[in-house]
C-alpha cells in the first residue's frame, strides 16, 4: 500500500495525466509465459500473446486511459526456468499478472511464487486440477479447463457407451498423473475398471513399446493421459500397430485442435474429446478466428488461446473497477465477485476456489468426407452444462473453501 501511495504521489508530481487511476509504474504489465519452442508451442506459444493483445485492444484500454503492456517468455516446459522468469518479471520488470503457463509442473511452481509476491496468476494452458484443489491460492484463477473436467467429459461418455475397462498411457509428470487420477476416478464411479497403467517419460518420441503393453492388457479403452506431440505420436503409432483395428479404442483425454490438424483426419477421425471452446461453434468464435488466424500462420485458435483472451478481458475489467492493480489478492477477489462476460465464453462466474465456470463440450472428430474446409474438424456430441462441467466445490479440498 505504501508503494501504491508513493507511486501515486510520484505520478502527480510528474504531472501525469491519469490521476484517477493508479497502476503500479503507471502501467498494467501482462506477462504471457508458455512453451514458445517445444511440444506445446502451437496450442499455446505465440498464439497466446496474440490473444492477449487482441483482448487488450478489444477492451479499449488505450481509450480508457489504461496503459497496458504485454511481455512474453518461453519456459521450455521446465519448472526452474519458469520460476526464474516469473521472479525476474515480478521483482525487476514489475509484471502484474502472469497468464497462460501450460505444463502443470511449471504452473504449480509459478502458483507458489505469485501467491508469495501477491500478484495475479491466470491459468489457461495448464490442466492439473490441483490448482483449484489442495494447491489453490487467493491469487490464482484456473480459467479454461482442467483434468477433472476432461475426465468427466470424455471418461463418462466413453464408459456409458460400453468402454468399461481402461489402461492408461500416462506422461510421467504432474499433469499426466493428475489426468490419470481424475479419469480413473470417473471410470470407477461409472462402474468401469482400470486394468493398469504405464508412465512414459516426458516428452517421449517412441510409444510403440508402451502401446504394446497397453495392447497386452486387453483393456477396451487405452486412455492417453498425455498432450501435444506425445498424444499425436501415440495415436499415430497406435494406428500403425493395428491397435485400433484390433478392437481396442483410444481415448485422447486431452487433445487440441492443433493436434488433430497435425494428425490429419484419416488418422484422427472418430476420436472423442472434451474441449472448452471450438472456433466453429458460433458466429462470435468464427469472427475471432478470422482475426486471429492470419496473425498466427493460419493456425486456428485452440481453447487455450481463447481462454487467454477471456481471462485477460475479465482481468482488465476488474482492474478498471478497482482502479488499481497493486494488490493481487484484491484484484482476484474482484474478479470472483464480478460475473464474467466476454464474446468467446459468454457469461460465467469465478468460484471461491479460483475455478472459472462455463460449459464444456464433447466433440467427435469428423471423417475426412464430412470435413468441408481446412480446420473443419469437430462435430458436437454433447454440451456439458456449466454446473456439471467442473469438480463440485466441496470435493476439491481447497483450503480457501474450508476456511
Amino acid at each position, binding site marked *: 500500500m505504501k508503494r501504491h501511495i508513493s507511486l501515486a504521489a510520484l505520478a502527480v508530481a510528474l504531472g501525469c495525466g491519469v490521476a484517477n487511476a493508479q497502476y503500479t509504474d503507471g502501467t498494467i504489465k501482462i506477462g504471457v509465459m508458455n512453451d514458445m*519452442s*517445444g*511440444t*506445446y*508451442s*502451437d*496450442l499455446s*506459444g505465440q498464439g497466446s500473446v496474440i490473444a492477449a493483445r487482441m483482448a487488450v485492444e478489444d477492451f479499449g484500454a488505450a481509450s480508457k486511459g489504461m496503459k497496458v503492456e504485454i511481455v512474453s517468455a518461453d519456459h521450455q516446459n521446465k519448472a526452474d526456468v519458469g520460476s526464474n522468469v516469473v521472479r525476474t518479471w515480478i521483482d525487476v520488470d514489475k509484471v502484474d499478472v502472469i497468464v497462460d503457463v501450460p505444463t502443470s509442473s511449471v504452473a504449480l511452481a509459478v502458483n507458489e511464487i505469485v501467491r508469495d509476491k501477491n500478484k495475479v496468476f491466470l491459468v489457461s494452458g495448464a490442466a492439473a486440477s490441483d490448482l483449484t484443489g489442495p494447491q489453490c491460492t487467493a491469487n490464482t484463477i484456473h480459467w479454461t479447463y482442467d483434468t477433472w473436467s476432461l475426465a468427466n467429459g470424455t471418461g463418462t461418455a466413453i464408459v456409458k457407451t460400453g468402454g468399461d475397462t481402461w489402461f492408461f498411457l500416462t506422461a*510421467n509428470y504432474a499433469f499426466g498423473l493428475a489426468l490419470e487420477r481424475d479419469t480413473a476416478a470417473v471410470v470407477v464411479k461409472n462402474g468401469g475398471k482400470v486394468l493398469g497403467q*504405464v*508412465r*512414459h*517419460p516426458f*516428452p*517421449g*518420441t*517412441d510409444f*510403440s*513399446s*508402451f502401446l*504394446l*503393453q497397453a495392447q*497386452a492388457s486387453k483393456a477396451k479403452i487405452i486412455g492417453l493421459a498425455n498432450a*501435444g*506431440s506425445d498424444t*499425436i*505420436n501415440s495415436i*499415430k*503409432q497406435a494406428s*500403425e*500397430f*493395428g491397435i485400433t483395428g*484390433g478392437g481396442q479404442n483410444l481415448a485422447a483425454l486431452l487433445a487440441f485442435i*492443433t*493436434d488433430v*490438424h*497435425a*494428425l*490429419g483426419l*484419416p*488418422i484422427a477421425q472418430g476420436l472423442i474429446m472434451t474441449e472448452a471452446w471450438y472456433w466453429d461453434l458460433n458466429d462470435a468464435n468464427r469472427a475471432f478466428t478470422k482475426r486471429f488466424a492470419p496473425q498466427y*500462420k493460419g*493456425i486456428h485458435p485452440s481453447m487455450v488461446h481463447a481462454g487467454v483472451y477471456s481471462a485477460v478481458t475479465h482481468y482488465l475489467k476488474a482492474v478498471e473497477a478497482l482502479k488499481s492493480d497493486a494488490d493481487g489478492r484484491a484484484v482476484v477477489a474482484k474478479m470472483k465477485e464480478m460475473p464474467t462476460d466476454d464474446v468467446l465464453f459468454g457469461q460465467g462466474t469465478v468460484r471461491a476456489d479460483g475455478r472459472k465456470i462455463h460449459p464444456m463440450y464433447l466433440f467427435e472428430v469428423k471423417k475426412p468426407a464430412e470435413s468441408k474446409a481446412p480446420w473443419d474438424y469437430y462435430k458436437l456430441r454433447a454440451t456439458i452444462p456449466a454446473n456439471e462441467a467442473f469438480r463440485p466445490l466441496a470435493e476439491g479440498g481447497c483450503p480457501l473453501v474450508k476456511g
Partner: protein
Amino acid sequence: MFEVFGVSSQALFGQLLIGLINGSFYALLSLGLAVIFGMLNIINFAHGAQYMLGAFCAFFLLNGIDLPLPALAWPPAVTFVRITPGLNYWWALVLAPLIVGATGIVLERLLLRWIYRLDHLYGLLLTFGLALIIEGVFRNYFGSSGLPYTVPEALRGGQNLGFMFLPNYRAWVIAFSLIVCLATWFVIERTKLGSYLRAATENPTLVRAFGINVPRMITLTYGFGVALAALAGVMAAPIYNVSPQMGANLIIVVFAVVVIGGMGSILGAIVTGFGLGLIEGLTKVFFPEASNTVIFVIMAIVLLLRPAGLFGRGT
C-alpha cells in the same frame, strides 16, 4: 509360454523387436556421426537438424513447398513460388539424402573447413549454433505440432508374428538400416577408397603427396555423413510426425550412443546403436519411467571403466 519377472515371453519378444527398431535409428544416426568425427574430427551437433531436414525434404517432395524467392524491389520483399514435385517415399529415399547431403557439402566448404585445425570445441559450437538456427527457422514456418506423412502404400499393413503385430514398415526399417550400416562399414574398413580415407585422417600431408585430393575427399565424407542423417530422417517421417524438434529429441541419445561405442568407431556405432535400442526396450517394460535415462547411466558406467568407449582405440 513362460514368464520373466511377471512379463510374458510374448510381450518380451515384442519389446525386444521394438527395441531393435529404435536401435536401427540410433545406429544410422550414430554411424553418420562416427564417420564425420572419425574422418573430420568434427563433432557434428547439427546432425539432429540434418535428420529433421531429411524428413522435411521427404514431406516437400510429396506435398510441395512454397519456395521463397527474394523479389527485386524496395523495400526488400519475398515472394513465394509453389513447387509440387509429387514424388513419393521411394523417390524421397534417394533424393532427400542427395539434397540434404549437398547442403552439407556447401556447409563444409563455407564454414567447417576453416576450423579443422582448431580445438574440437569450435566445431561443436559452430554446428550446435547451426542446429539451433535451422530448427528455429523451421519452427517459425511450420509450427511445432508437425506435419503428417503417411506410410507408403506398398508397406502398409503388417504381419502377425504370434507374439506381436509387426507393421511391415517397421520391418523394412530394420532391414534397410542394417544393410546401409553394413555397407558403410564395409566401404570404410574393407575397400581401397576406405583405406585412403583412413590414411587421410592419420596423415593428410603424406596422402596428398601420393596425388590424392584430400580436401575434396573430406568434403565428400561430410556430405555422406549428412546424407546418412537425412536418410534416417526420411525413414522416420512415416513413424513420427515430421516436426522441427524431432532431431533435437533424438540427438542427445545418439551422442550418448557414439560415446559408449567409442568416438569415431564405425563398428562401435552400429553395434551400440542396436544394442542400446534393445536395452532401452527392456527398460520400457521393467521400469518405464527410467527409459529416457538408462542410456545415460550406461554411458556414465562405460566412461568410468573404458574412457575411450567400448570399441574406441584410445589416444
